[in-house]
């Protein structure tokens, strides 16, 4: 029986969340100041399985952000991927640099008050086929979902809204990704939607002077809805669908860096046809600003 694996559902979650003082799997509209360079590094371990197959992906996405102005930021992201598929007693594996994503982010709304800000941003960009998409092993060329790269040029747009107060922060984002075609194959385009709440657990009260480190408790909902993949213009039945994760996490926030960890557990797994279903994702990482 042929089994498809929706790349978007399994690997779409490789896309890291926000860049500034953001939640872990959701974007933010908080500012990247003019001239700021921000580096974010994560390690994400994902597993998807069903009765006959199991797929594991370890992704290390590196994100660099540059604040061109206080409203415009440029973002570059490239993941290193290690993918492993066990099916019918056979294990296949690949690793290497994945596709590179370049994004521009522009602030379209800002309302500031003492101890509070509300902001909205729009993002647009492309994913470039920098990852190898013709890797082989002893059994021949690897199936497309196991390749580090897709081979296609994809476009994406997104919008994000943030409310931040001294005690808590809420972020909401929606993104659409239109996947291109490569070699007669097109991964299903997708819509992702995320909502996040960060609540300051420590310190309970802010000191009158100085900047304390924060410990945030984070709770997110991360959804991915993907169209079916297409081969030579024909949709593939066992691909695409909808997955919704609940993602509790914790962050340690200082003036200079953030350390964070999160686990994503599926609430809804409504996939088309027969596909391995996402089991969980574990993410940990840090971000540093210069």
């Amino acid at each position: 029986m042929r089994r498809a694996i929706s790349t978007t559902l399994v690997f779409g979650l490789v896309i890291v969340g926000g860049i500034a003082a953001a939640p872990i799997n959701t974007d933010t509209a908080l500012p990247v100041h003019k001239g700021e360079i921000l580096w974010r590094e994560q390690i994400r371990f994902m597993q998807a399985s069903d009765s006959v197959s199991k797929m594991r992906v370890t992704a290390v996405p590196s994100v660099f952000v540059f604040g061109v102005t206080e409203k415009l930021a440029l973002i570059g992201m490239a993941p290193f991927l290690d993918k492993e598929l066990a099916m019918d007693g056979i294990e296949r594996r690949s690793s290497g640099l994945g596709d590179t994503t370049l994004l521009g982010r522009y602030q379209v709304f800002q309302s500031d008050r003492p101890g509070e800000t509300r902001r909205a941003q729009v993002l647009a960009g492309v994913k470039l086929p920098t990852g190898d998409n013709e890797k082989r092993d002893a059994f021949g060329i690897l199936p497309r979902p196991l390749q580090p790269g897709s081979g296609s040029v994809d476009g994406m747009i997104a919008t994000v809204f943030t409310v931040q107060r001294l005690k808590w922060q809420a972020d909401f984002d929606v993104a659409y990704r239109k996947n291109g075609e490569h070699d007669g194959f097109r991964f299903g385009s997708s819509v992702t939607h995320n909502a996040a709440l960060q609540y300051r657990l420590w310190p309970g009260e802010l000191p009158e002077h100085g900047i304390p480190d924060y410990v945030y408790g984070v709770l997110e909902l991360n959804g991915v809805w993907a169209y079916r993949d297409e081969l030579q213009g024909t949709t593939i039945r066992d691909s695409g669908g909808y997955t919704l994760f609940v993602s509790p996490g914790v962050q340690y926030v200082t003036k200079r860096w953030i350390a964070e960890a999160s686990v994503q557990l599926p609430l809804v797994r409504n996939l088309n046809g027969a596909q391995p279903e996402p089991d969980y994702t574990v993410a940990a990482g840090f971000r540093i600003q210069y």
Partner: protein
Amino acid sequence: MKTPSTKTFVILVALFLATGVVFGASPPERAVIEVKGLACPFCVQGLEKHLKRLGAVAAVHTSLQKGEAVADFKPGRSASEEELRAAVKKAGFTAGRIRFESKPDETAAPEDADQPDLNAREET
């Protein structure tokens, strides 16, 4: 010998005092800036960096609870309100009221410390 008149004496004293006032006036030693939109530690670094880039600013002390940043000026120097507002904007925030202050005289008697700072001036 003709002695100076009372009128001449008064004029000389007035000129002396005026000269003392002019040459004795010192620039403010710090600016207290209300920063709107500042709500987490990770956002503070950009604000402090842009304020410190102003040549006149020696140090910045930020309070999230108060929602303000205090920019200490280098001796004999100060930044204008426009420069301070521009720095806050580059950091991605909105400057509210800006108050220029001179530090209280540390050699003054303790009871003087509670007196209002007559050199303070407030600009909005």
